[in-house]
């Protein structure tokens, strides 16, 4: 296991890991530490820092600190759910396409092509316009945006691994496809597939926060970092904390995950670069 944590010894791994830990702790424990009810007014709107409200009050007079402490859970939780869902679906599709190499493959891959030819945020907005604003729509939508790229990477890795001797030996022994995939293929594609997990999680956070910011995701009076920025940005001159602190929290979280992902990828011997998903020669 010490090998898996080797990345923590690099500067970017240590810094990134520290940042992520901090933000996640704030998000997880924040609700218990918050001095006030995040949805109830505690004073005059848009006052600056005071001993009563360290980060001042927002446009409705609610305590900014309490809202920040309560505002991380939702975005991290939804992003995690969407990313996990995307991996489950994407890996299933990619394994079937790559391993069977049957007619399923071209059909699936062309579908994936169409999905990739469509701007992700636009896809989500159209979905919301049609199905309404709800958390389920948001999570399914974000998973649907990510799954095609994952399935493509899984498929490529599966195609490559499937020609290896240990997989063919299993096939020649007449073992069932399920057994061969589970024992010989899956363990060997996990590393290249999961290397991008950090990036994908960041992307999920990014896009969910963006939708929340646009007012098309989580609805008021919920406390959510992106929502806080959106609600208070008109009054940024009156209490800058109400915008800049949640913005810093989101920024720290995504930068921290990126740094950590980069360090993990480096320790696995691969440079952490989002691959172009299309190729002219194919």
């Amino acid at each position, binding site marked *: 296991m010490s090998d898996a944590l080797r990345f923590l010894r690099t500067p970017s791994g240590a810094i990134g890991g520290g940042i992520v830990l901090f933000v996640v702790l704030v998000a997880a424990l924040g609700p218990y530490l918050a001095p006030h009810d995040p949805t109830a007014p505690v004073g005059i709107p848009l006052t600056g820092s005071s001993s009563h409200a360290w980060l001042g009050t927002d446009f409705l007079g609610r305590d900014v600190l309490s809202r920040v402490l309560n505002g991380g859970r939702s975005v991290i939780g939804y992003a995690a759910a969407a990313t996990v869902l995307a991996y489950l679906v994407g890996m299933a599709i990619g394994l079937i396409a790559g391993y069977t190499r049957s007619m399923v493959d071209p059909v699936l891959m062309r579908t994936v092509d169409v999905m990739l030819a469509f701007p992700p945020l636009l896809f989500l907005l159209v979905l919301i316009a049609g199905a309404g604003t709800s958390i389920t729509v948001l999570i399914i939508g974000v998973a649907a945006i990510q799954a095609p790229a994952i399935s493509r990477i899984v498929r490529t890795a599966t195609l490559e691994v499937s020609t290896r001797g240990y997989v*063919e*030996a299993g096939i020649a*022994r*007449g*073992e069932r496809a399920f057994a061969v995939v589970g024992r010989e293929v899956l363990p060997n594609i996990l590393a290249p597939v999961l290397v991008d997990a950090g990036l994908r999680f960041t992307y999920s956070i990014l896009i969910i926060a963006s939708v929340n910011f646009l007012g098309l995701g989580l609805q008021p009076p919920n406390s959510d970092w992106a929502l806080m920025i959106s609600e208070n940005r008109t009054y940024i001159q009156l209490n800058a904390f109400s915008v800049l602190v949640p913005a810093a929290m989101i920024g720290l979280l995504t930068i921290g995950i990126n740094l950590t992902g980069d360090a993990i990828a480096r320790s696995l011997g691969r440079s952490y670069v989002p691959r172009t998903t299309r190729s002219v020669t194919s």
Partner: protein
Amino acid sequence: MSAVAVEPVVRVENLCLGLQSGEPVVDGVTFSVGPGEIVGLVGESGSGKTTTALSLLGYTRRGIVVRGGTVEVGGESVLGRDRRALRGLRGNTVSYVPQDPGGALNPSMRVGDAILDVLRAHRRGGAAAESVRAALERVELGRDPRFAGRYPHQLSGGQQQRVTIAMACVCDPPVAVLDEPTTGLDVLTQDRILAELRRLRDEDGMAMVYVTHDLAVVSQRADRITVMYAGRVVENGQASDVLERPRHPYTRALVEAIPDFRKPRALRGITGVSVGVGEWPNGCAFAPRCAYEQTRCHETVPVLEETVPGHHVRCLRWMELDLQAGERSNGRAAGVAVESAPLLEVSGLEARYRSSRSGAPAVADVSFAVEQGRCVALVGESGSGKTTIGRCIAGLHVPAAGTISFDGVPIAGTARRRPLEVRRRIQIVFQNPFESLNPRQRVRSSIIRPLRVLRRLSRAEAEREVGELLERVKLPARLGERFPVELSGGERQRVAIARALAARPDLLVCDEVTSALDVSVQAAVLELLQELQRDLRLSMLFITHNLGVVACIADSVLVMDRGSLCETGTVSEVLAQPSHDYTRRLLAAAPCLPDGAL
């Protein structure tokens, strides 16, 4: 050719290179190259041969630093020169021919311009186009005047390599460094390139340092041979001397490990694994694998001593050892056809790939049989369809037409549809040992799987048999607890063989099982396979491109050319009196030792 009298064009003295962290990579290398001389720099992977050769160009790979010694090329010192001086030297005084010609040419540049670039780097003005044409003519690419306007992807592998050679000789440097220039090419092309290099030397007097892991490739073309082991030169002399009267036990073992179709004999591998950087033992680095080692060999590093003028050896015991008197056993009993029932019969086999839009089948109308207890070799170049046949037999590729019968009964195309007994009795060993074991499983688990699936043993019974199987392939039982990354290529291939043997097969399909291994390791694996075949009465289908290997291991041979069989017969018949033109060409091009060699 003896060129010792004149001033050498390359002089390397006591060259020491090491990693930045301190481990030596090359230690005290000394050799020289006379004008117009071809020197073969031979060694297994990790011997430091490429590092040494690149230092002639004043180039060290990242992380490697010069610790001492001198390198002179064309009378000029190379080490410690600034980038500008080196650039003037490279291509002009000493040029470079890379290993992989496909990757070594700029894909967006016409080949004529690539040659011109080297010329322009050193010569201003003059008839540049004329020089480029002349360079192409020297490598026999001058016939088509439009050739210089082609892009690399429009050329064959052999043509690409000749372009890189043209780049290396356009400025007429006195010496060129060739880094395994024929390794990726097929036998026929390799032979042509070698002949051309020889001609370049004869006509233009260009000296060459030819780096290779394959002693056979240079044995007939080089004037002198320098053998390296673990970063040191162990033997160095006239090619004929080195091959006929090797003074170092390692050189002798190397020569004996070369499968040569003209001298079929029992091959003997070198025990153990060649040492890597940072693992050098005290004393002579070869001592742990040496058949003649004594206590003092492990204590003192021998020095390079001159035996006769121009011949050097680095061995404490060179004086007392008589290495020529090794017994020469005569390989296999002559392939007299013994009547026995065919175990495997293939008739009218045709195989296609879905992706091939040209419509030509990969294998067309192939029929042959493998008799009980015999070894049949299937020979051909890459793309000839030989591997596809092996895959059809193993149930990994469904034939488009034809039947495969096993023990008199036709069997299904896919393994899943074959009865358990058939799946158990046919086993396959794959080409690349680095990809044939599941890296996520211990060796033990890889071997247990066929025991459980094909022989239906209980877990406890299977566990018990693992040690026995590892012993069969001459590996210590403790290796079972290791993961494949911890094993060398030869060890991995033995594990793959053990995995196949676990099923107690009757027919073993060996698909190029030694082509990814060093020569000395290849000999040891072949030795093992021969022994197994004899002891277990295995039948074998041995797929290979190497005719020397065929002569060593097979009873009969099938020669494939572009998807169909062009010649079949016993090994002695086919190799001695080939009837088909293609077989004749293959035999003529096959690298083999000169007549006088051990």
